[in-house]
């Protein structure tokens, strides 16, 4: 017998009072959307749970992989089902289930029962007790532990009978889109994809902006960013990626301003451009991968200077993280391998030998006045001529 459906558990969104059904609908939609790439699954909401019915001939591993990447799911368990509530059939179901679900039959368990059909001739505790007995008899390695079981096994008796165990852990968080949209400044590095992932985890849909600098950066660097966007889109859903040609602006700053301020000035223009695009696409915040003190442009003074150009809130979910912690997440979400490919991004070219680490806002602002002649046109052009790509998970 094979698993024909999954039971999806969610926690946090269940707590949201009157908004509950909105969040639930978001999650159902998210599950539908993600599973639609694998086939025709039926996703239904019923009494505080979500059921996923799998189509004929579905791929079990792909389905598990897909569900384990959807924000808002705390856990999900494969379910076995029989179209009857006949007692002998239920006993056989329980035995089949243990046989197939667990490689080693030497664990402790606790049997649960939920009885939707109140006319059923046995009560829930009776069913649990009897079925536990059947399993003990059939699998001599098993034993019951009602306080601290290795596994819990649940049987539901409604119009049909269902059985499932603990299943898989989900990644938690909240369904993407239930919390609006934000603009991620995506580079080719390790941090920014992780930052996008973390904010998306709180239910936020993501757009992204990448700053390209041909001929100083190459097509592989650009492809790397597209690949990163694709990887995080497995979690966050479709991403609108804006690619800005930043070369002209960078060159102009380089020609006009003190070289040690180059990075900080560049980043201020990146923030301005990202904010402008964010406004146009109804994003309510910017997201960056900055982590306090990691590099010259991420000291408190530097962040103060870059932050000063934005009216929009800037989310920096990694601000208190060590590099090793960020690397750990990037490995888990599958962006690390791509992030460490050795292609230059626009931040690593023309880096001054000694960039300012403690820039002072009014000095930086003064340097920017030197750019007054052309910079507004350049920024407007960079935004108008941006390339927009719609990135979808594959």
């Amino acid at each position, binding site marked *: 017998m094979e698993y024909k459906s999954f039971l999806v558990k969610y926690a946090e969104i269940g707590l949201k009072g009157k908004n509950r059904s909105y969040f639930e609908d978001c999650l159902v939609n998210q599950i539908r959307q993600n599973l639609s790439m694998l086939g025709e699954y039926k996703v239904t909401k019923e009494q505080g749970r979500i059921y996923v019915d799998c189509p004929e001939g579905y791929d079990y591993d792909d389905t598990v992989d897909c569900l384990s990447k959807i924000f808002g799911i705390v856990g999900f368990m494969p379910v076995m089902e029989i179209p009857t509530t006949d007692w002998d059939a239920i006993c056989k179901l329980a035995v089949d289930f243990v046989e197939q679900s667990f490689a080693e039959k030497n664990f402790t368990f606790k049997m649960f029962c939920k009885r939707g059909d109140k006319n059923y001739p046995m009560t829930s505790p009776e069913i649990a007790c009897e079925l536990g007995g059947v399993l003990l008899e059939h699998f001599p390695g098993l034993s019951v532990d009602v306080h601290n079981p290795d596994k819990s096994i649940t049987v539901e008796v409604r119009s049909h009978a269902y059985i499932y165990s603990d299943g898989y852990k989900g990644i938690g968080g909240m369904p993407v889109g239930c919390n609006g949209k934000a603009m991620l400044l995506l580079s080719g590095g390790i941090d920014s994809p992780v930052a996008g992932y973390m904010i998306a985890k709180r239910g936020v849909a993501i757009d992204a902006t990448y700053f390209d600098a041909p001929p100083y950066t*190459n097509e592989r660097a650009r492809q790397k960013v597209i690949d990163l966007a694709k990887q995080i889109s497995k979690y966050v859903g479709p991403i609108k990626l804006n690619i800005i040609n930043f070369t002209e602006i960078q060159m102009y700053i380089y020609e006009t301003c003190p070289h040690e301020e180059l990075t900080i000035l560049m980043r201020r223009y990146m923030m301005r451009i990202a904010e402008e695009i964010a406004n146009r696409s109804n994003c309510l915040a910017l997201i960056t991968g900055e982590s306090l003190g990691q590099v010259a442009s991420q000291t408190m003074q530097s962040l103060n200077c870059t932050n000063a150009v934005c009216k929009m809130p800037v989310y920096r979910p990694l601000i208190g993280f060590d590099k090793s912690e960020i690397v750990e997440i990037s490995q888990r979400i599958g962006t690390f391998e791509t992030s460490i490919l050795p292609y230059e991004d626009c931040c690593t070219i023309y880096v001054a030998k000694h960039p300012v680490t403690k820039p002072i806002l009014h000095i930086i602002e003064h340097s920017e006045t030197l750019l007054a002649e052309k910079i507004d046109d350049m920024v407007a052009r960079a935004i108008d001529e941006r390339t927009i790509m719609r990135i979808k998970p594959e």
Partner: protein
Amino acid sequence: MKEIYLDNAATTRVCEEAVSIMEQVMREDFGNPSSLHRKGFVADTYVREAKKQIAKSLKCEEKEIILTSGGTEANNLALFGGAYAKKRSGNHIISTSVEHASVYNPLIFLEEQGFEVTYLSVDANGRISLEELKNSLRKDTILVSIMAVNNEIGAVEPIAEAAKLVHDFNANILFHVDAIQSYGKLPIAPGKLGIDLLSVSGHKLHGPKGSGFLYKRDKVRIIPEILGGGQQNNMRSGTENVPAIAGLGEAVRVYFQNQKQYMEQMYACKEAFLRRLADMPFAHPNAVFSELSDTHSLSERVRMTAPHVLCVSFDSISKSEVLLHSLEEYGIYVSSGSACSSNHPAISGTLKAIGLPDCYLGSTIRFSFCPETTLSEIEETCDRLSEIVPKLQKYTVK
């Protein structure tokens, strides 16, 4: 946009003749050359025809050709197969400090296995010294491996003299030539020169990728690396890659039909390029015997090098890759010289080995031609260079 492809030392466009024969093999004559039926026999004729063309080009016999998946496999087979076959006679190998990775990485592996390798130095023009070679030969030397043409700078090594010197010292030493950049570009007849092993790649002369061969002089014994069904006299098992082999055969046939003319065409391009570079004070061509300019004409000096590779260093370009991408914006494709920081004599890179100052290691570009390259393409490339380089120099971090 019209493309100007000047990266022919990396790979070349497959010629029409090769494409059409490969299509025929893949669509119709797809048999396994080892099969006994007609389909197999037909497939085998393609393999034999290709070997015939190759043998003709090298003035050797068909049985001396071992078809491989390309140059890298040919080099690996020659070095491992040669070293292990000769192991009982000694464990000393001689090579140069400007070899391609497909030679030096096998050599480093052999060093780890207990072989001792001497790496010959080169002069500013990338040429080894025969004197140093002579002094490096020992009683326990079993293998000498020297490339014919360097892939990065186009230096031509004195293969004929080296082979004679080695075999005069001891006729049993295996003499291997990596001819991947020289085959077709310069005439070479291994039999006459006393070369024992010679590696060739198909895609460097308008054949398909995944094709190549090792010439192994008859009577020379090496140990095969790939064991299996015993194809190719047990020297290289595995069902022959018939489409690639047929394509290689056609490419060789076409190339060698016109070999002299092709060579002159490419020399003309290189010469024209160098004439234009002379007017660009920021450009410094490497390994073109500049020091002989008082006594030798440019045309004479160019003919002391390979016809298709020109390596140029530029002043104040922080990274050759940036220049590469700038040229790319005009549809001009080139390659950047590689710099490597390693201290191992074999892997520090050709540019370091010819004594190029550190400041140029990262600002060197390789232009490489093919018989299709035209003088007007060279002119256009030089026009772009004289326009782009000064612009980039403005933005170099000092």
